[in-house]
């Protein structure tokens, strides 16, 4: 009977829901659309390891419409105002800016992912590790008004000091550098 076979099947590694007695169920049922574990990215959710237990970030929660079953009014109104840190994000070439909540993310890699999703500019993660070679470079304006490269300081310090973000095209970065070099050269000439 399926009950006995369940015992062994449960130890198998697979993406489907655990404990499905496939032999009993007709093929129709196996095409379950949107099985929760698949939508939720359960299996390989590395965020799990950061927090002990099954805590999900809002991003993975949002992938399954309507679960957990919290009514939309409540969802909108029970966010902790104190931990929200919305900053503007501009991307060169994009017609309008976006806003991102720094408090939602636990580190630079999560931020990179979020930025990628917002603007569809892939390679943001790599840009943080290797700023020399990527098309898009994330920079931020700090409390003193200076534009800094994202990723140098610890995450908490960055959250504290970041006033706004900008995703710059690498080619622009060179442009700006060149402009400064030219300005310096002109200054020197005029001395």
């Amino acid at each position, binding site marked *: 009977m399926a009950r006995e076979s369940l015992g062994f099947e*449960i130890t198998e590694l697979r993406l489907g*829901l*655990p*404990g*499905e*007695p496939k032999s*009993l*169920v*007709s093929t*129709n*049922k196996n095409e*379950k*659309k*949107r*099985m*929760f*574990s698949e939508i*939720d990215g*359960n299996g390989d959710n590395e965020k799990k390891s950061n*927090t*002990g*237990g*099954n*805590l*999900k*970030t*809002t991003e993975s*929660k949002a992938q*399954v*419409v*309507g*679960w*957990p*079953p*919290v*009514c*939309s*009014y*409540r969802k909108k*109104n*029970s*966010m*902790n*105002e*104190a*931990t929200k840190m919305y900053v503007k994000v501009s991307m060169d070439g994009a017609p309008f800016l976006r806003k991102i909540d720094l408090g*939602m993310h*636990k580190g630079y890699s999560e931020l990179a992912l979020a930025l990628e999703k917002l603007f569809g500019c892939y390679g943001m993660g790599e840009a943080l590790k290797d700023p020399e070679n990527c098309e898009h470079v994330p920079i931020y304006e700090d409390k003193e008004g200076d534009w800094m490269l994202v990723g140098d300081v610890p995450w908490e310090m960055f959250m504290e000091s970041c006033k706004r973000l900008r995703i710059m095209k690498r080619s622009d970065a060179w442009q700006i550098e060149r402009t400064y070099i030219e300005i310096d050269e002109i200054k020197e000439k005029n001395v």
Partner: protein
Amino acid sequence: MNYFPDEVIEHIFEYVGSHRDRNALSLVCRSWYRIERCTREKVFIGNCYSITPERLIQRFPSLKSLTLKGKPHFADFSLVPHGWGGFVYPWIEALAKGKVGLEELRLKRMVVSDESLELLSRAFPNFKSLVLVSCEEFTTDGLAAIAANCKRLRELDLQENEVDDHKGQWLSCFPDSCTSLVSLNFACLKGEINTGVLERLVARSPNLKSLRLNRSVPLDALQRIVARAPQLVDLGVGSLVHDPAMETFAKLMTTMNKCKSITSLSGFLEVTPRCLTAMYPILPKLTSLNLSYAAGIPGSDLIKLIRHCKKLQRLWIMDSIGDKGLGVVANTCKELQELRVFPSDNIGQHAAVTEKGLVAISMGCPKLHSLLYFCHQMTNAALITVAKNCPNFIRFRLAILDATKPDPDTNQPLDEGFGAIVQSCRRLRRLSLSGQLTDKVFLYIGMYAEQLEMLSIAFAGESDKGMLYVLNGCKKLRKLEIRDCPFGNTALLTDVGKYETMRSLWMSSCEVTVGACKVLAMKMPRLNVEIFNENEPADCEPDDVQKVEKMYLYRTLAGKRKDAPEYVWTL
């Protein structure tokens, strides 16, 4: 069979209040039907499309109080697309035309336009009470009309509505002659209000018992307002944020000390935790405490607060209280009857609730009968213990954040746990399931849940048998809502007559096909079978073999509705 004159029977019927009892009376014989319908003042309509307003008015000429519900429950979770329906205007229009002496209107999940509020405010001179829960489309302009025109208004209660704030001064629209307010709840409004106007309104409302403010009322205004209403029974604090002037805070504490009657407290949409001490004077008398929107109160402060609330009967709270905090609740709140624990948004905060918190509650609170519990995990052992400790559950709703999570200790589905609940709680009327579940849990439900009226299922079951166990076994089932389960045409079509004994059935992301829905609609003309066709163009007829994304069916005497949007097909 009347041995008494009508007047005597009418007099006896006056003592019969509940809708169910009244419905039962009307079935006894023709003259009781006649007498009942002529004396009936309150009517409850669970599905606004089950009957036409005209027919309602015809049957109940003495109608004074009407409760209407619109959208299906799963609309709360964004599963019903915009524009589905539930418009109240046609009802108000019909009631006005029929010269009904409407005094009270309670609406849930309905679309309420400003136009309908304006008509409501003018058409019924005796109108006293408006309660809107989870409604949408109206703005503060509509509220202004109610305030200005309802001369006898006693109650304006707005709960969890999406309201557009038009910056008009709706509160100022209450005339100086309005002194009849008993209940005013505008906690869900986002905009600013004139606190001076509010203060004067409260000052001239000696009967005001319930007042729930929104977050725009600062601490000093809160103090002045509450000082004017020491007779309050129910207070909703919108915002309790630190005021630099210490004396205001001290004044507030003195004011709260004078409020001897407050038994219900809610709100704290914005809060500085240390300001909560101002509330301590009223905590010992509280029977109802709703902190489910107080995201700014950390678990430790929640626990400190709860220790003072020995008389609590109803507690709504966020899971930041943690298992340990629930242990404190269990030790403190011995009178607890209803508990709701909502998920907080706090990422990285470790305190969350698991089966341990629930077990602690079940051990400490024997009077518990209603539960809504969002948690990270649940075990069969815990559910079995809870079932043993609390056999009096009427409502049991469990929402595990990972919807298909098995018992983490044994890796088994939660069939046995929920089975224990239904077997032990013979009075269970509402049940929501989650976690990994096979068909077995439905076998248990069908076998034991004899009083079950509403069942919510998500990501559960293995085959049509599951749904059939429920349909066959639960004789009192009224509402069944199912999402993402492998239940298909056989389950849907085996007992079509069952659906006329129920209010409604919702099935989304299941295995039901268009063809089966058509068959059902054909066999049962007194059901409206609606399928939502969001992705296809409106004029494209889907194949019979195509799976239905969303289906909602309900019994009705009103026939096919005429206000359905393009994407809804009534078969």
